[in-house]
């Protein structure tokens, strides 16, 4: 079918672009842009994980930044204690090993999502949106009040988490580590969405009541998806902390949750790859517009409004020739 080939072509092109990017920007003499690329990939990972919940599960979560932030702080706190020689809560020693910190971020993000989801998924619609926002705000204020870990000012640390055999301080190496994780997630998520779980999840979005009438309890499916997406967001947060060598409560601010939703919509709701594209476009737009005027948001705002009002399906749908459902 023509549509599938075009979409497949787009995926391959995207993969090629991701792989060739560091080489490309070095070749044109702008190697400092590699860091920008890494940021795009990380946000793409976070946005894709959100799409799992919003696009495929139909749950509009406005608190996704919370899991992102928790992952970031997992790395930051572990790094802090590694340098300090002290232990977190007197029990857990610090670490600057990626193989410790990153799984920790994943697990913590998942646990937070499990807890928040278990409570929030008892509501629906606008109540769900607000309660996820509320929980994220609570965590935001929690991290602000943790003066030991920087509070309002945030926490910086060096070096980046260490990986055996790779120099994460090298921008190019780190970029490829992130790229591997992103592509890995997209592949696994793609399989998951085609498997029984994904089918049930998509069924929940289409008609939850119907699913229950058939005998599939929607709550468990939704909670599992929510937890997984939180875990992946946690991992993305860990990567972001590494990228910037800095974490601050701003990572959990509700506008960050808004940014992630924008990336999902911009790229294409329920397309999985779209949000990565959305992240790229949004971040590049911000970067480019910021060069032109410090007031670039006055342009971005109306662009978003126009996007919602007039363009359906997101960029991925337009490029791949598929229409939004």
């Amino acid at each position, binding site marked *: 079918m023509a549509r599938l080939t075009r979409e497949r072509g787009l995926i391959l092109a995207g993969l090629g672009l991701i792989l060739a990017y560091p080489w490309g920007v070095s070749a044109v003499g702008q190697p400092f842009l590699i860091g920008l690329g890494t940021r795009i990939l990380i946000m793409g990972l976070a946005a894709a994980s959100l799409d799992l919940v919003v696009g495929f599960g139909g749950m509009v979560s406005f608190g996704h930044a919370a899991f992102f932030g928790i992952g970031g702080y997992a790395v930051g706190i572990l790094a802090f204690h590694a340098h300090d020689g002290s232990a977190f809560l007197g029990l857990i020693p610090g670490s600057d090993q990626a193989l410790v910190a990153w799984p920790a971020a994943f697990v913590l993000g998942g646990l937070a999502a499990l807890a928040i989801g278990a409570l929030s998924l008892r509501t629906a619609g606008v109540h769900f949106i607000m309660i996820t926002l509320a*929980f994220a*705000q609570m965590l935001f204020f929690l991290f602000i009040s943790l003066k030991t870990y920087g509070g309002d000012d945030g926490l910086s640390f060096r070096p980046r988490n260490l990986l055996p055999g790779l120099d994460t301080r090298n921008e190019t190496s780190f970029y490829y580590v992130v790229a591997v994780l992103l592509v890995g997630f997209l592949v696994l998520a793609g399989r998951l969405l085609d498997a029984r779980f994904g089918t049930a999840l998509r069924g929940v979005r289409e008609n939850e009541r119907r699913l229950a009438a058939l005998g599939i309890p929607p709550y468990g499916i939704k909670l599992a998806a929510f937890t997984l997406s939180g875990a992946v967001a946690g991992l993305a947060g860990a990567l972001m902390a590494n990228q910037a060598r800095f974490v601050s409560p701003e990572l959990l601010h509700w506008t960050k949750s808004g940014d992630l939703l924008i990336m999902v919509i911009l790229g294409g709701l329920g397309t999985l790859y779209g949000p990565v594209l959305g992240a790229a476009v949004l971040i590049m737009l911000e970067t480019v517009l910021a060069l032109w005027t410090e007031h670039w948001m006055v342009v971005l705002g109306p662009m978003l409004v126009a996007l919602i009002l007039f363009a359906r399906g997101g960029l991925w749908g337009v490029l791949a020739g598929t229409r939004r459902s």
Partner: protein
Amino acid sequence: MLLAEQILNGAQFGIMLFLLAAGLTLVFGIMRLINLAHGSLYMIGAFAAAWAGDATGSFLAALLAGTTAAAAIGMLIEAAVLRRLYARDHLDQVVATFGLILFFNEATTMLFGRQPLFARMPPWLAGSVELLPGVPYPAYRLAIIAVGLLVALLLYLLVARTRIGMLIRAGSSDRQMVRALGVRIGVIYMVVFGLGALLAGLAGVMAGPVFSVQVGMGEQVLLLTFVVIIIGGIGSVRGAFIGALLVGMVDTLTRAYLPGLLKTLLSTSEADAVGGGVSSMAVYLLMAAVLLWRPRGLFPAHG
């Protein structure tokens, strides 16, 4: 007594939240529209009032400017943007109105710069009133409470006693029915939205002298306003009133007393930080608790 003062502060904050929440809950209840830009109207009211007050030296001018600007801009965005969102799903509404926030914040920065604006307090309200012997309380804050209660009364009369109020209540629970009655639903929407925008602007005008007039003030208060509506029940003005007072009280009282209480356990700077953090969290914890007990809020408008 410090406690009485704090209680009044809580009531004053609550009343301001009520002015914002009343409009928002009606808009949400009737048009099913999540409007994140409601906070921007509050900000516009505050800025317009501060600027006009500074330019003319008259509080009345400030009041007029603030409320008119908010109402006018409100109706403008209703016609240009929001009208097209009524039929769209919540996600679209959230992202589109988020875009409006970005626009208004940046536009305000372009017009007024990044420094907070000074909003003059009307001199005839600058003093204190002795409520009880030895308990002076700022007259201006009392005025806010008085105005808020007046608005609450007027809203109650409007919604409960007038024809348009009946249509609003009906529209809240059964839109099809209202349409079937031959009423132009678009007109009702415009009126409701305009009213909400006016109240938001009024809140902004009154907030100016007490809180700082700066970009971002809308978002801070918007989140609390949503919490109020969720607690009170969507679509219910009565719920907005009760919810607003609850939230105002909880927020003010925890901020006032929690750090002090924590000082017995922690060092001073830690107590301040943790106390501040927990106080900020308190309102959200309250909301989560209410939702777990009553998933539709305390006074939901429909069933």
